[in-house]
């Protein structure tokens, strides 16, 4: 029984750039199908430049030139009804933001208005979304929120520059959870933080999810964090999702060659052998090779990989892979 909260169908979003007369198309999100369930932590992992952030922008409905929605749809399931995000008006989208789906940005160093106190920022967010609360009421709400999440209430009276980077990141999470949204999208919340602060941030995310029983989409290339938090993980490569399964499956029995490289490159306790990562570099998103984008670096490359893009097939019930090897294996097992 699925309880989807967000779904995409064949989502395509490209950057169309016009550099002095020459057109350049960056295929950042290249046919993505995914479905996020209620009450789960969905991780998206991949190298830098694979299109993760663009995917998040598309999911959030924040597509602005030079980014363009080329094809596909994004559906929000608000109160049981599936809404096509592209059919929503600007005001409708604005209302949904923060109340239905909220965002934790990467690098919270400069996301707060430097000339107003933190509590005023809370007030701005609360005041812009229904409720008709007065200023003092909203300060109370903010205080309550911080208290619940274990943050010192005094920071409300501070200006952003007076807080440390880690504290600012945690405030963004508190802010994101403020209106109890059904989905919280986190874009690399732990990058650029030291390990100790990272732990605090990760713990906070877990607390928030446990309290609100909502869904969290967590984008990060840090597999350690994914292992800690995610229920399901999607591996993204060159604008496509190449594998999606439960966290245990991804770490325990990865199928896609890229995922295998990713997992194998992680250090393990006691294992002192050299770590190996995938040879070569990820392709430029404006100049993709034909067929499967990974075939250039793949140790199991077949002829068909060089010509045709593999379709996403179901390896097992909750394990999807986009790789020609699936057919190979099926052929082999059926013969």
């Amino acid at each position, binding site marked *: 029984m699925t309880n989807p909260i967000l779904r995409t169908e064949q989502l395509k979003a490209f950057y169309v750039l016009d550099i002095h007369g020459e057109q350049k198309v960056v295929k950042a999100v290249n046919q993505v199908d995914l479905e996020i369930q209620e009450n789960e932590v969905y991780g998206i992992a991949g190298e830098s430049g694979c299109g993760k952030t663009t995917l998040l922008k598309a999911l959030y409905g*924040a597509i602005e030139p030079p980014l363009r929605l080329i094809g596909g749809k994004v559906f929000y399931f608000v109160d049981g009804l599936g809404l096509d995000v592209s059919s929503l008006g600007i005001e409708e989208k604005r209302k949904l933001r923060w109340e239905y789906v909220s*965002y934790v940005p990467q690098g919270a160093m400069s996301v707060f208005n430097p000339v107003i106190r933190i509590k005023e920022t809370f007030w*701005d967010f609360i005041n812009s979304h229904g409720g008709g609360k007065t200023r003092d009421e909203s300060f109370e709400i903010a205080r309550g929120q911080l208290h619940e999440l274990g943050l010192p209430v005094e920071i409300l009276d501070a200006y952003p520059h007076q807080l440390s980077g880690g504290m600012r990141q945690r405030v963004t999470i508190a802010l994101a959870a403020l209106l109890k949204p059904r989905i919280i999208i986190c874009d690399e919340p732990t990058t650029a933080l030291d390990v100790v602060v990272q732990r605090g941030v990760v713990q906070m995310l877990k607390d928030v999810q446990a309290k609100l029983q909502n869904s969290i989409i967590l984008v990060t290339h840090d597999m350690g964090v994914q292992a800690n938090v995610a229920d399901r993980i999607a591996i993204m490569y060159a604008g496509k999702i190449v594998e999606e399964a439960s966290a245990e499956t991804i770490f325990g029995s990865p199928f896609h060659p890229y995922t295998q490289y990713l997992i194998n490159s992680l250090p393990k306790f006691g294992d002192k052998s050299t770590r190996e990562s995938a040879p070569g570099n990820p392709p430029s998103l404006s100049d993709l090779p034909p067929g499967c984008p990974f075939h250039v670096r793949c140790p199991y490359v077949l002829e068909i990989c060089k010509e045709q893009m593999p379709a996403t097939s179901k390896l097992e019930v909750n394990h999807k892979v986009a790789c020609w090897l699936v057919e190979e294996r099926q052929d082999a097992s059926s013969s």
Partner: protein
Amino acid sequence: MTFIRGYLIPRLIQYFLVIFIGLTIVFVLPRLAPSDPVQRTIAQLRSMGSYLDPATMNSFIEDLNEMYGLEGSMLEQYGAFWVRLFHGDFGVSFFQFPTPVNALIKTALPWTLVLLLVTTIISWTLGNIIGGLAGYFSRSRWSRVLDTITMLIRPIPYYIFSFGLLLLLAYVFEIFPVSGGTDIGRKLEFNLPTILDVLKHAFLPALSLIILGTAAWFQTMKLVVQNTNSENFVQYARLGGVKQGKIVSRYVIRNAMLPQITVLALLFGQIFSGALITEIVFSYPGLGLLLYNAILTGDYNLIMGITALSIVAITTAILIIDLLYPLFDPRIRYS
């Protein structure tokens, strides 16, 4: 406390230092000239056809020397210069002999001050607000039209613009009086007809300064806002679904104003000079006109007095602006 030590004290030291250097320059310049002010005055008199016998000539030269503060060695002159300065004594005017210079300045100063302050405040505020909105809605029709209009107005120097305005509105279409601060012979009393008369005369010079000033602030603010638009905290507020009105006023313009305050301080010297030039064109009875007459008659004391006063006035205005800045930027207030 750090604010006082870190910001206030250095600023005050700079203030006094600049005034000291400026006034020293005022002292030094005439004495650097290839010809001596006394000789020039004599030459000027001679060219106007007067003749003095040698005895009278010598005592006249002595008087001139005393009047111009040229007695004694350089050091003695410098000392006497500062002593006189502290007494507010700039010597005696040549152009309106024997009226002391500071009497002339005292009459002219209020006219200039009022004109300058009123027009600067109006054009700064107006230009920043309109420029801010134009920068935010930079793709709109009206914003681009305003942009082109200001592009035509801004480069024109004060003199030509004022002159053009004078030609247009006082000669061609005789709407406004051609010159002066009031109708000839009117006494300055505090009643309605006088005030209206003053306003009528002040209108053209004020209009000239306001148009030029607003055009300049419009342009700079538009650029600043276009940059501020892409700041992280503005994008974050948008992602948070904060209402547009709030974003424009609290996030964009509030922050864009900060560099504009600094620019006001930097440009104040130019704004002041521009006001003087405009006064001359409209024969407005302020420091500008006084300066013009001083130049025509070769009245050194008057020129020095006006220059010295201007240096103090401008530096003080800049100091006040600089001290007001922390009120608007909490990063300086608490750092």
